[in-house]
């Protein structure tokens, strides 16, 4: 049923023989020049960064994010209250969307990496892990932590002319979180993890 010794390019359907990649090798499709397999997965590092990310995520959301001083009045926001402003302005669907993009998906993704690596290490609940991995594949384009941080920077430039800005703990935690999330994503190669989840069983 499954042809185990073959691998196909998802973009142009060209079929190749599967080879075990060395750590610095990658499989590039010779027809459409797409990298099919990076072979860069390092689950241990991914785990470290994802766990750090989860802790930073809690800090970033629990502490104040940014304070501005506008004509003697101070306003402090947290990440949650920036989403709340959309609800207050009758843009509920947009509020739900933003909540999904910057709270649910990133947290889900980081917890997913932690869970998957643990489950590989101790060989527990592999079938649940597979479910997790498929959901993560679908959710990965909707993880918008980096985009949010760029949004924050743009907003700061916009407000700078009329108000004083203080960065609070939440902001620094969030910046570090973004770094962790990018590194966790880099070391945790989804395609490799999926392959890993299914080859364990056969071995």
């Amino acid at each position, binding site marked *: *049923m*499954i*042809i185990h010794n*073959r*691998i*196909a390019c*998802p*973009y*142009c*359907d*060209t*079929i190749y023989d599967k080879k075990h990649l060395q750590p610095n090798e990658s499989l590039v499709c*010779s*027809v*459409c*020049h*797409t990298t099919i397999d990076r072979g860069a997965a390092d689950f241990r590092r991914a785990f470290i960064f994802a766990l750090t990310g989860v802790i930073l995520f809690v800090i970033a959301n629990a502490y104040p994010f*940014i304070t*501005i001083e*506008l004509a003697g*009045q101070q*306003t402090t*926001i947290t990440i949650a*209250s*920036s*989403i*709340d*402003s*959309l609800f*207050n*302005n009758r*843009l509920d*669907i*947009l509020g739900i*969307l*933003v909540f999904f*993009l*910057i709270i649910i998906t990133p947290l889900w993704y980081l917890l997913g990496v932690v869970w998957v690596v643990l489950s590989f290490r101790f060989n527990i609940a592999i079938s649940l892990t*597979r479910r997790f991995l*498929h959901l993560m594949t679908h959710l990965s*384009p*909707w993880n*918008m932590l980096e*985009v*949010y941080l*760029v*949004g*924050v*920077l*743009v*907003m700061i*430039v*916009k*407000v700078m002319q*009329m*108000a004083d800005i203080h960065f609070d703990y939440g902001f620094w935690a969030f910046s570090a979180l973004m770094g962790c999330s990018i590194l966790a994503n880099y070391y945790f190669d989804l*395609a490799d993890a*999926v*392959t890993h989840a*299914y080859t364990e069983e056969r071995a």
Partner: protein
Amino acid sequence: MPTLKNEPDTCREYGFCNCLECGAVVKKDITLCPRCHSHLHSRKPKSLQKSWMFLITSIILFFPANLLPITYTRTIGQPVQVDTIMSSILFLWHHGSYAVASIIFVASIFTPFFKIAVLLYLLTHPAPKRPPVIQTKLYRFIHFVGRWSMIDVFVVALLGALVQNNLASITPGAGIFAFAAVVVATMFATEQFDIRILWDKYRDYSCKNQS
């Protein structure tokens, strides 16, 4: 493996099916992937129709997104300032924030427009006569770049929360809603499109010309 042609063969020619969920190469006659139990299709089902649907949605929404106001700024002693995406970019440009103005221009105006243009091109030119390498690269690029258009939505949400007192206040407008919908619709359109159709058409074409 009998390779008569110079190019390697495709999954489909062998009667195999590539599971996009788990990367397994499976014999075509089964409908559920034996490895990950997801539905198997040699090509994404009805990809052109679905992709057209989301693309047309995003083209329609593109107009309100750019014409409706995204923020209302109220300052004491001044009339309410109504901003669209373009006017907020021009405002930043005139105040000397060239870098930020360029970032927002690229993220909010150029990228959605470019994505729509690329998808239109891919959907209306499905039978290339040369290997569609550039098309594949464009497709992968718009796949990668799609998320970054959301910057403006986050900016408006943050502004609305931060600038909220009795001297000045910023209120998000309906334009930002339409804009977020454009971004989401183009992301879905990209997801639904199957670039392998172009490769199929090209391979058919080159086969016919060889014989």
